[in-house]
């Protein structure tokens, strides 16, 4: 019974989070016109948000963190993070666990962010930073920087791809054996410890004899990360025009130097009919892949986008060879509109490319990436470099639908965007749209479907938390910003559902 006579108490049926839409008078009775640092319990209760604890138990914990990613290696779920030092250098560390830190594994002056994709236990890293065009801030790969690859073992990251071997080999007849007699061009392909095959190098022509094998001296050695060199050869050339690079090369079976020191390879026999594995695609590969602001995977190909020189360019590697990117056939140019590509993501067998307010798609037609057909998806909605939610500790987006931070809000994308009334942040539309668009590079979105929570870092360096225990839709999701005494810049999930937060010392 009400303590005030004739007054009927108002029953609040639940607590459904922040409402920042229209003015405060429109706030429904079961929502908050203002809230901060609360967590939702069950379907209708709330309490103080959980506290945070330190994640590193070492004498010199890494400070001033700008970006963190899940880095699943073959043996553990670890963290890669970017920290800025007092000189303005961006340093990337590999946090194996609370007591083991590798690095910095990469230091780049002026790096304020990086793109990352794991592949076969390795980490592909692309430094990027902010640039301005008039009053707009955007992100693109750093000028003069290239894609890096990190082995995951604490050794320094190295520039991905690599140059052809330099020098000239000397072929000669070897011991008794067999070849198809006639002139051929021979060369060697160096292979790095990351499996990258460089373009053929050391090219030399030689006329083989039918009853002899071929031997080679003066085989050049490669960079320090080269672990083997593979012989390639043309088939017999009837009318040689003198061009040592203009003919189709094939890998010669069983003709490998399994080190980076031996300079001879002896007594190789083969027929032209044995030359089945084409190596000519290596000739046009980037020997140094320019850095971009987006990295991803599609059909087992590495996808890199938004280089410093071309903000509308997507580079796509050969399948299974993330460092082998053809400079002609491996390029996709997203229609130019003056806006940079901000993200690229596979979903349901389609490669989606995003600009800040545009989405297009490409589908693998089993041809070269440059031939993949373009299908416009939405000319008005796009995202930012970290605006696609990763799921749990996978470091990857959902397979069946994407949660995307756009200028409109956080929304579910399943090949098409929802109507505006169904955007997940509909209840906090004002809150979201007040965020400075020039700060969208600071947004990072993760999804914890076990807790049924979304975590999103904001340009204001708060953490926006969306609880969807009552349903992942615009009506039932419950929002609340969380703030901390230190600013929050990055968020990730480790060990299935441990939420990791990276904070810096301010800008």
């Amino acid at each position, binding site marked *: 019974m009400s303590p005030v006579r004739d007054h009927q108490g108002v029953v609040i049926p639940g607590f459904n989070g922040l409402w920042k839409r229209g003015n405060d008078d429109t706030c429904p009775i079961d929502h908050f016109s203002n809230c901060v640092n609360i967590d939702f319990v069950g379907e209708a209760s709330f309490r103080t*948000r959980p506290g945070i604890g330190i994640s590193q138990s070492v004498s010199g914990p890494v400070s001033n963190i700008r970006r963190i990613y899940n880095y699943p290696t073959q043996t553990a779920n670890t963290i890669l993070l970017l920290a800025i030092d007092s000189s303005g250098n961006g340093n990337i560390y590999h946090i194996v666990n609370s007591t083991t830190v590798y690095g910095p594994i990469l230091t780049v002056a002026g790096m304020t962010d990086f793109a990352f994709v794991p592949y076969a236990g390795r980490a592909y890293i692309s430094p990027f930073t902010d640039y301005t065009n*008039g009053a707009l801030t955007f992100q693109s790969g750093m000028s003069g920087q290239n894609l890096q690859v990190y082995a995951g073992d604490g050794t320094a990251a190295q520039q991905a791809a690599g140059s052809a071997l330099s020098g000239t080999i000397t072929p000669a007849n070897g011991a008794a054996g067999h070849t198809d007699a006639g002139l051929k061009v021979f060369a060697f392909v160096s292979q790095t410890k990351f499996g990258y095959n460089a373009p053929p190098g050391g090219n030399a022509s030689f006329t083989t004899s039918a009853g002899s094998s071929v031997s080679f001296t003066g085989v050049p050695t490669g960079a320090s990360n080269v672990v083997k060199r593979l012989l390639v050869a043309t088939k017999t050339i009837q009318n040689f025009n003198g061009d040592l690079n203009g003919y189709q090369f094939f890998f010669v079976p069983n003709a490998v130097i399994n080190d980076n020191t031996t300079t001879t390879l002896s007594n190789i026999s083969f027929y032209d009919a044995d030359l089945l594995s084409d190596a000519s695609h290596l000739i046009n590969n980037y020997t140094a892949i320019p850095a971009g602001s987006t990295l991803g995977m599609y059909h087992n190909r590495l996808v890199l986008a938004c280089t410093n020189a071309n903000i509308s360019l997507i580079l796509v590697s050969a399948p299974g060879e993330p460092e082998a990117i053809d400079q002609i056939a491996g390029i996709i140019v997203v229609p130019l509109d003056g806006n940079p590509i901000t993200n690229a993501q596979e979903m349901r067998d389609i490669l989606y490319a995003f600009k800040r307010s545009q989405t297009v798609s490409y589908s693998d037609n089993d041809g070269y990436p440059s031939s993949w057909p373009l299908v416009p998806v939405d000319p008005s909605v796009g995202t930012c470099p970290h605006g696609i939610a990763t799921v749990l500790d996978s470091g990857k987006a959902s397979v069946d639908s994407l949660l995307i931070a756009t200028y409109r809000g956080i929304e579910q994308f399943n090949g098409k965007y929802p109507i505006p009334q169904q955007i997940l942040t509909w209840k906090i539309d*004002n809150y*979201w749209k007040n965020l400075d668009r020039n700060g969208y590079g600071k947004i990072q979105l993760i999804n914890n479907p076990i807790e049924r929570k979304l975590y999103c870092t904001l*340009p204001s360096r708060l953490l926006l938390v969306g609880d969807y225990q009552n349903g992942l839709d615009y009506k039932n999701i419950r929002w609340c910003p969380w703030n901390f*005494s230190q600013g929050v810049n990055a968020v990730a999930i480790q060990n299935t559902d441990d939420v990791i937060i990276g904070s810096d*010392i301010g800008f």
Partner: protein
Amino acid sequence: MSGTFIITPDSGTVTSGSVENNTALGVYGSFVLATIFSSSTGVPPPFPRILQGRNTITPNTGTDILRLGFSLTGNVIALDGNAAISFAGLPAGFNITSAKIACYFDNSASDATNHFDLTFDPSIISSDLGLTNQSFQYPSNEIPNPLLFFTQGCGFHVDNTTIGHQTSRWISKWAVSGTYSILTSSWTLPVTSNVVMGQKFTINGASGLSLVSRIHVQALVGTTLHDNVVYAQDFISQTDTQIVFWFPAFNNPNSGTVTLLADMNANNATQTPPQNGVLIGTVSIIFNDSSGLYVLTTGQAFDNVYNPNNRAAAATPVNILDPTVEFGFIP
């Protein structure tokens, strides 16, 4: 408070493009800014002229633009006819309200047409201008904040329509001038010293505080403007006479002093460019570094942060910043 300014770069940096200045063709590279900034309109030394492919240029390629960046530390800007000061020496709350580039153009050599433009940032460029005294006014509704204005510089663009023509321009009397205002408030800061991040910070005033949409906590360290923004929607409370907010983590400025500026009327979910830089005051801060890698800890009722005074020491427990809910109107 308002007044006029004039920028006359003393050692402007050529940020894009290059010029030759020598009378003898074939000698390139050294660029005499004094020629451009001189007040003479007499018979010129034969140029500077844009250098692109030596004696020829390719029109509209972007490389035919000479951009002059302004030194942030040199004394290049004079206010109200006084001695020039540096950007860093500008009073807080300084806003450029109008700007124009003025210069004197003349031709020398083969191309007698008038294909040259004046440009502020690359997106703000004039149409083709004639000879002698010319100027280009910045569009009044698009002037960026002073830092961007300085760092993006200004320049001129040779828009030669005939490939192969020598582009021989004599340019002098180059200056950027305009008006400025310094917006100050009469708001007061109860605490102005030893402020630390995560501290509840208050601004009081007789009125007007309800219109504040963002507060910038700024310091210029070297040539880098550190700018941390607190949004109105994240204030602890806001009325017309008082704002309370959590003081943000701040990159340590050398001086230990930061400036507080307010943006007005930028809310309402519009992205409307705010009215920049109403000066609130300055505050000395104590730098605390509790940055690092954290993990959410279910069931823990406090934040355990890296010890700001000794990061190697045991973590320091701090209170979770005021968990708060406010209901909408309940009948």
